[in-house]
């Protein structure tokens, strides 16, 4: 298998990988103390959540662009 796939669809899947960049680099989304979660301010648990989201997004793109030889 290769990632330089001639099928145009594969490219669209890769666009999903931009989401973690937007979600974490645009600070106004999350520079706040409330709402807290289990005592942890929003600023902190928002970033922790994005670790999980980006792992899932990367896995989705991996499986979506993987195909048999």
């Amino acid at each position: 298998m290769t990632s330089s796939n001639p099928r145009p669809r594969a490219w669209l899947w890769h666009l999903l990988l931009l989401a973690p960049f937007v979600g974490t680099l645009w600070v106004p989304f999350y520079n706040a103390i409330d709402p807290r979660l289990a005592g942890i301010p929003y600023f902190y648990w928002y970033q922790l959540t994005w670790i999980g989201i980006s792992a899932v997004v990367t896995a989705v793109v991996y499986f979506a662009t993987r195909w048999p030889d």
Partner: protein
Amino acid sequence: MSHEHYAALTVFVGLFGLVTALGFVAARWRRADLDQLHEWGLAGRRFGTVVTWFLLGGDLYTAYTFMAVPALVFGAGAIGFFAVPYTIIAYPFVFVVMPRLWSVSHRRGYITGADFVRGRFGSGTLALAVAITGLLATMPYIALQLVGIQVVLGAMGVEGSGWMSDLPLVIAFAILAAYTYQSGLRAPALIAIVKDAVIYVTVIAAVLVVPIRLGGYAKIFDAVPPQKLILTPPGPHDFGQYSAFSSLALGSALALFLYPHSLTGVLSSSGRAVIRRNSALLPAYSFLLALIALLGTMALAAGVDKDPAFSHGFARYGTNFAVPALFLRTFSPSFAGFAFASIAIGALVPAAIMSIAAANLFTRNIYREYLRPDCDGKEEATVAKIASLVVKVGALAFVVLAPQKYAIQLQLLGGVWILQTFPAVVVGLYTRRLHRWALLVGWATGMTVGTTMAYQLHFKGTVYPLHVGPWTISAYAALWALLANLGVAVVLSAILNRAGVDPGIDATDAPDYAGGP
């Protein structure tokens, strides 16, 4: 030294002995001819998903990460959490870019980033610039691993005066040098498994036990001064800490895989699928890093710096002592020894890989390129092994002889410098429209701009406030320098290409970038 110190030291030395044995045994693992550079320095490019995961995790998350990130949070507050977005966005980037580099390196036998630049642009000079930048950025990074070991040794009361004070460090590093010489990349790959196990145990214990002692997470965050809890919002003519936070995260993420030791980790994997799979699996370490950053918040809430028992440590090691102090306060002496061993082993793995990567760079891009172009494979491997020793002795001498703050300042500069190879290495993977001489001038511009900014900041930080009209934009100097670098490279390429200046011979072709398992 007290009784507690002996308990901690016993556990520490025991674990250290275990990884030493592993380091030597590693030579027999997946046995092959270690007299070939791609076997000694890249372990034959045969590491699968699991070993690559351990190796890259052990490689990228260094002892300095474990100390400097919480130390920054402890000292400066929320801005230190830029490390979390940094490691979040690094992996999607790796997912897209690094399989291309793996493929072309596999097809053409490249073992360093400079090898690729040499082949792609047909320019020995540009390759030399990339190789020297890699060496310059790696040396202080190795020195900082030693600083990490020094701090935990100090926390266990191992600190004499005069030359005796450095003896434990010298012994630890001599052992490391011996098994790296013998086993090559196989040693840190095997030790990385132990490293991860002890670090996960330590960090999970800390994030469970410390909040119990301090009365829960709500209490911890309530104890943090409000101005340190979140970032400073933008004012009328600046972006507050927002631009610094984002640019530090982005710049660090783009720089991470330009470091020679990261490339060594990527290129030793057995295929592009392994790299792509790892991009989805490596965020497990990002989670660990976030927890480690939280240790800085906890140390802040616990007020460890106000404890007279730790005043000596803080005076000697600065905020880097925050996490060791938190461990000493929280854990029993023997578990503190375990925790300190995890930091020290955490230093050995990257130090070994960094010295191997530096040795590969020297051998391939300086020795074989300029000194002995017709050397055979065995000579190449022998030179690399010796180079790995020289690099370690150099780092050790630096830490022992120069004040600690120089190592830290050089490491900051290293991050600024290594990002200046981005246009040649990463942009070069996609297009050849940038001219080789334009890339060289761009690189020189970026190095100059970045170094000047760091100088103006007195090498104390890397966030540079740029004044644009009424605005003050504070951002990571590495990113400012990269913008200058790219600007020059693009404009000059247009001119040189139009003028018909010889662009050099491209030894690679399009299928090189997509092939392989």
